[in-house]
């Protein structure tokens, strides 16, 4: 018996046959990407985009999704080379081997995810208020975030099926808007002239660029797909298809929804509304009671936003967990709840940071600073992401010729360069147009630096004298 044990040991070490089962098929991944992208912006930001561009705001969505999809190509190539959960930080580390830069990317990604959660939570509150407008906004957003944190702690999000059902609901909501648009056109009321109208101030090109900068938030979320890369069946084939397919589907849906909204509702009304897609439903174009449709649509919008926010909460605690393992933030973030197997401290910390952002935003607003928290946080998210996306494309180009085999997906180089330029132009515009966003960017980055300093101050007690930070093979006192 002992002999078989040993021979088995060897054969296991060599081939390790039939032990890989992965659970995420290409189709599930497609819905994961689609659900992540769709929820994140259109429900929340379409009014702001319409206000920035004018009737032709569908162009902003079209351009935005193009730049994002080009970035998605770089992601697809890198994911097929390195199918691990770490995403952008991993790619930048592979390409540049520069610790501070990797740290910066990780913190930027974390910060963008915090800002996105805050923005989405505020968007959720606005749809919630249209159903029941009693509770104060801040209370709803905080309760919403707390509920998602608890859901993630318990682990309900594990279900891939739940995720897919939520995506169906999201798409259904947008199809409702499109049906209203088609109905309106069929009635012959549509004025297609609206679609070529631009905001009267300034040049059309600048109007579109400013719209893209806002609409870009709606295209984000696809980068979270790297979270599930390791568990995708046949990632080299499935990943590029699902990622690019999901983004293009989202783009087509966005453009059609934007056209439907522009045709059916006055652009000024859209721009002034906090929950702009509801205005389309409220216009009472299809012969279904408006009251019923409003509530139904608001619920759909809330589900859509919930789906995306759930993923971003998962991403935050995952990044913190990885950083704690790396020993750049305090080890408490790597603490796993003994039975639920969730990073309790990481989830709680994310909740506190996002809640803090929302409270600060609300207080500044009360103090008369006139800040729209949703738009502000959306811009901050976009600043971080454009920076990360640009660097991911550069990493992709730099890693050409490394770790490749015959079935690695290879993105088209000219397209990647166009994507890179697009990201940089947008980044330049956002910073030029809204330099104040740098304060928020700096504030969020400071959280990362504080965490690092806490680790430096506390962590040295955990390490034997002379040991390097992140040195593998050192077990900590608490681990023994």
């Amino acid at each position: 018996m002992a002999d078989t044990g040993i021979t088995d040991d060897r054969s296991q070490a060599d081939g390790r046959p039939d032990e890989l089962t992965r659970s995420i098929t290409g189709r599930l991944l497609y819905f994961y990407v689609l659900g992540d992208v769709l929820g994140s912006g259109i429900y929340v930001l379409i009014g702001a985009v319409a206000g920035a561009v004018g009737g032709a705001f569908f162009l902003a969505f079209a351009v935005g999704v193009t730049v994002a999809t080009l970035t998605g190509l770089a992601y697809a190539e890198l994911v097929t080379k390195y199918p691990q959960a770490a995403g952008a930080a991993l790619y930048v580390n592979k390409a540049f081997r520069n610790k501070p830069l990797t740290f910066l990317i990780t913190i930027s990604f974390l910060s963008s995810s915090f800002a996105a959660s805050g923005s989405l939570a505020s968007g959720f509150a606005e749809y919630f208020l249209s159903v029941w407008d009693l509770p104060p906004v801040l209370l709803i957003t905080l309760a919403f975030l707390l509920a998602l944190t608890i859901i993630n702690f318990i682990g309900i999000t594990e279900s891939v099926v739940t995720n897919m059902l939520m995506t169906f609901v999201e798409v259904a909501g947008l199809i409702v808007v499109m049906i209203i648009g088609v109905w309106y056109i069929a009635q012959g009321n549509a004025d297609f002239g609206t679609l070529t109208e631009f905001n009267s101030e300034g040049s059309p090109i600048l109007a579109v660029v400013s719209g893209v900068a806002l609409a870009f938030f709606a295209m984000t979320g696809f980068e979270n797909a790297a979270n599930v890369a390791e568990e995708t069946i046949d990632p080299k084939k499935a990943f590029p298809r699902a990622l690019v397919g999901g983004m293009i589907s989202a783009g087509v849906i966005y453009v059609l929804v934007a056209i439907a909204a522009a045709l059916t509702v006055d652009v000024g009304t859209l721009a002034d509304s906090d929950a702009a897609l509801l205005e389309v439903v409220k216009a009472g174009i299809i012969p279904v009671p408006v009251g019923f449709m409003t509530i139904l649509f608001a619920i759909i919008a809330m589900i859509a936003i919930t789906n995306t926010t759930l993923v971003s909460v998962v991403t935050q605690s995952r990044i913190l967990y990885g950083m704690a393992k790396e020993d750049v933030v305090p080890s408490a973030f790597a603490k796993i709840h003994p039975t639920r197997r969730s990073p309790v401290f990481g989830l709680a910390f994310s909740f506190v940071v996002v809640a803090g952002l929302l409270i600060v935003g609300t207080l500044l607003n009360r103090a008369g600073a006139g800040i729209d928290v949703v738009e502000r946080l959306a811009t901050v998210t976009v600043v971080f992401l454009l920076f990360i996306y640009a660097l991911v494309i550069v990493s992709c180009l730099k890693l050409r010729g490394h770790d490749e085999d015959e079935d690695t997906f290879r993105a088209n180089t000219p397209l990647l360069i166009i994507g890179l330029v697009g990201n940089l132009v947008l980044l330049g515009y956002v910073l030029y147009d809204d330099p104040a966003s740098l304060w928020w960017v700096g504030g969020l980055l400071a959280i990362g630096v504080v965490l690092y300093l806490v680790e430096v101050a506390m962590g040295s007690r955990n390490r034997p004298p002379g040991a390097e930070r992140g040195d593998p093979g050192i077990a900590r006192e608490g681990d023994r």
Partner: protein
Amino acid sequence: MHVVIATDGSRESLAAARHLQSFADPAKITTITVVAVIRPLAAVAFADELSPASRKGAGAETLSFREAARSAVDTIATELRKWGPKVKTKIRSGSPASEIIKEAELTDAGLVVVSAGGRGLTDTVLVGSTAQRVQHYAPCPVLVVRAAPRGGSRKRSR
């Protein structure tokens, strides 16, 4: 008899494997499959608290839950190989309870070994723990190993 031992990377799951060794007759066990289940959509898809190497190795830059699961099953498999029976390892992904049951069905297992998991309010009322679901739906007997009474070792010492 084929035995499936499930691990979630926790010390309790290693204790469960040891508990099996403490009373079972290795001559009657033909094969043991050590299975770990990765939860791709959970905040931490798999956390390995067993193998010394993984306590530091994987970090923010190289985060690989598959490697974590790999080292967890290997740690338990290495212990079991000293005991006698042939040991296989398997990593699956999805919902832990249903993947453990699938593995038991696939290997035509005669016994499934799991650690008890929690007994708090959230575990029993809200979702039910993995161990409970495995007990309900497994195609064979299930050994649920309870850890030593709470706070016996680590918690009280802090």
